[in-house]
């Protein structure tokens, strides 16, 4: 039992590394990974075999591998959690950057989705880790951050960010439940394009265009 957890943690480490590599290149080889992680080629090969069996990786011939959809999303999740944790360790606990990375490696595996969500909220939905790398979103690829004003009638999205300088205004939005992570749906758009009727949880609001432009969402 214990061994299995360990193994899956190791698999997660691999997927994380692979996700990083794939951010730069589409395909990877055993030797690239072995170099990058400083692990012997045979053990990397061993792991690749296992990951392929479990459906995280697939061989694209000639010793090249690429991540499957499943592998990509798990890798992304780990990266996301890692970078969120770094933010927590550095911003809140005032930990050294270097230490934060190692500590985050250790903590990232057992995290529940609830904790991830509360981290996002506590940290104010940060866009990057302390080192400046982007924190990947939890949505599928292909749903970029767009202003709410770009969403068509009947569409829904998750609020990712609110771009406004005025903090009191942001807090007013919080009191209405308009907060990153919340799901928002465009119910109607008033004639001549402009005011939007949105629903959010059990509340419905009419939002002027100016506000809708400040609320960034990822379409669902």
């Amino acid at each position, binding site marked *: 039992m214990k061994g299995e957890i360990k193994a899956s943690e190791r698999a997660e480490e691999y997927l994380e590394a692979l996700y990083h590599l794939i951010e730069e290149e589409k395909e990877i080889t055993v030797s690239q990974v072995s170099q990058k992680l400083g692990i012997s080629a045979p053990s990397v090969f061993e792991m690749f075999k296992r990951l392929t069996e479990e459906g995280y990786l697939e061989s694209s011939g000639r010793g090249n591998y690429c991540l499957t959809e499943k592998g990509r999303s798990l890798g992304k999740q780990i990266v996301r959690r890692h970078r969120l944790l770094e933010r927590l360790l550095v911003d809140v606990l005032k930990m050294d950057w270097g230490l934060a990375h190692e500590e985050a490696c250790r903590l990232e595996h057992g995290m529940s989705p609830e904790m991830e969500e509360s981290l996002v909220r506590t940290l*104010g939905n940060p866009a990057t880790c302390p080192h400046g790398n982007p924190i990947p979103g939890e949505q599928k690829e292909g749903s970029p951050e767009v202003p709410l004003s770009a969403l068509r009638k009947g569409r829904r999205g998750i609020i990712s960010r609110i771009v406004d300088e005025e903090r009191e205004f942001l807090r007013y939005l919080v009191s209405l439940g308009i907060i990153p992570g919340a799901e928002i749906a465009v119910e109607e758009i008033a*004639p001549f394009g402009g005011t939007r009727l949105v629903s959010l949880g059990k509340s419905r609001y009419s939002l002027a265009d100016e506000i809708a432009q400040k609320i960034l969402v990822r379409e669902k």
Partner: protein
Amino acid sequence: MKGCSPPPKRGQFRRRFRWGQREALPRVALVGNPNVGKSLIFNCLTGSCVDTANYPGVTVDLSERVVRGESQNYLLVDLPGIYGLEAATPDQSAAWDYVFQRKPDLVVAILDSTNLARNLYLLMVLMALDLPLLVVGTFGDKAEQEGEPVNWEKLSQILEIPVIPVVAPKGRGIPLLRREILKALSRKKTQAFPLPYPAFMRELVSRLEDLMKKAGLPSRRSAFLFLMGEESVRQTLGERGLLTEAEKTLESFLKAYGVQDLPGALSSFHNSLSRVIAQAVQKPHKHIPRRLEKFLTSPLSGAIAALALLVLVFSALFLVGGWLSELLSSTWQAVVSPPLERLAILIFGPGAWAKVFLWGFDQGILAALTVGIPYIFIFYLILAFLEDTGYLSVLSFLGERLTRLFGLPGRALINLVASAGCNVPAIAGTRILPSMRERFIASLLILLVPCSARSAVIFGAAAPFLGWGAALSLYGIVALLILGFGTLMNKIYPGKPSILIAEIPPLRWPQFNLVLRKTWFRFADFLYFAAPILILGSIFLGGLYETGAVWSVVAPLRPILEGWMGLPVAAGLAILFAFLRKEMSLQLLLVLAAAQAGAPTTNLLNFMTPAQLYVFVYFITVSFPCLSAFSMLVRELKAKNALIILLIMLSFSILTSGLLYRLLVALGFH
């Protein structure tokens, strides 16, 4: 709700509770999100209402009422709806001002079961403020119907505060609420569970608490307000010389823990907490179809419905109001005027004084009545009804594109349409607008809209003598002026349009007796305020007229009237009296025309040229508000703003009247 006694008159209160006694009573404030049924509960609790008086807030009046309890009497206040500590409108800040300045002994937090998470957010803020709390859950029946019952006992256990479910329309839970309020008042302190803040926050708060104690402030509340950046607490600390210490403490904590935006972090914390609690006590959300709402908000059907409604409001004011006004006026003249006249002669003897008396108590009261009951009461009734259904917010959504040209929210449409009936209630109705900027712009535009009295002048003076085209062209000019002034004011008035978010609450069928009560209170308020002004104003003008002093008032205006605007000086008299009642200027003009002709005449052209008449009607239409409208303006916007509006209108209309006169003469209308 069993039979409420009719709203008592003001004097009654003084007999029962003198000011000192009243001040000594404990205060209970109803606090909650907008539209959670606060007023309904207020009404139920004050059902056997003892008395009412208005507590003047900063910009809105909050009404405090004495409730008689078995063991103790208390003052109950129904505060405007709020979402959080951040106030977006004057009535929202008035609610917080009440909480912080009048320091209620008990805050009854009202939670709407059909939107629990958001309602709990406000409760978290109230708890953070360390206020003595009692919680009431409303619309539990509705939540149950929607398959989402709330576990109130569990909520009470979590919060460590008594929670009382109330279904106000059926009166369920009200007796229990009465008892719990009394219990809570005798307990003195109702302590909720301390919010589970992170350790550093707790430490920071306890350090700040010590400082607040030193400054003689309520410690927990002030510490929290200080963290939220509240100015008043900083000011008090500054006066006591403790501000730098408090700031240093805060600074050191923020630095040590790398927190950049503490108020923001606290808000998000309260938000998460409220959602966690909501999940714990209520089953998850199910989709609820809202067909009527969909119909009313969808662009096409919604616009048609809105248009139909606006036409209805307009015709109610224009036709029904006009008819009622006529009826009241003729009844008054037939029934009240003759005995009043005899009375005046009895007291003052025949002569000028009797006539002055009649100006005030015959004409003056008549003016208050013929504007008050038919227009203001009807409009207040419609407004209260629409407010209680929640439809105003729907209108706000639909009409916003148009009104935003003027920097106004969509709901201002209703004021603009209503003003065509009578400006006075439309100005009073600007209270639904969020800031002075919007209220100022809206009031100015409202005053430009020809009310039914001014329409009477246009139709009575311009149409018969100058033709329908001329009469309609005046409406065209007014429309252009509104467009121009609205756009311009939006550009030059400092600040930005503030209402950019409005809640669209679920539509609800209003309680009719509540609507009536609200209408009555607002209406009575108007009467108390406007009637004395109208009577005194009438006496003053009547005195000027009867003593002949009026000519020496009008004479200095000769250069403006004759020299610039091209009007005969006698017309200045009619203009002066238009200030009392707009349609009176027409009557007076006919009298003057008759005097000029030396014989009764109904043809104004005997007295003025077409160009003069057109300019006269134009001037009467856009130059200044009547006395009722002006007194409402002073009441709603304060004297300074009212005077600025008056100045803008007067100078603009004098300037353009002269130009218009010259243009007309040049076009050959002389």
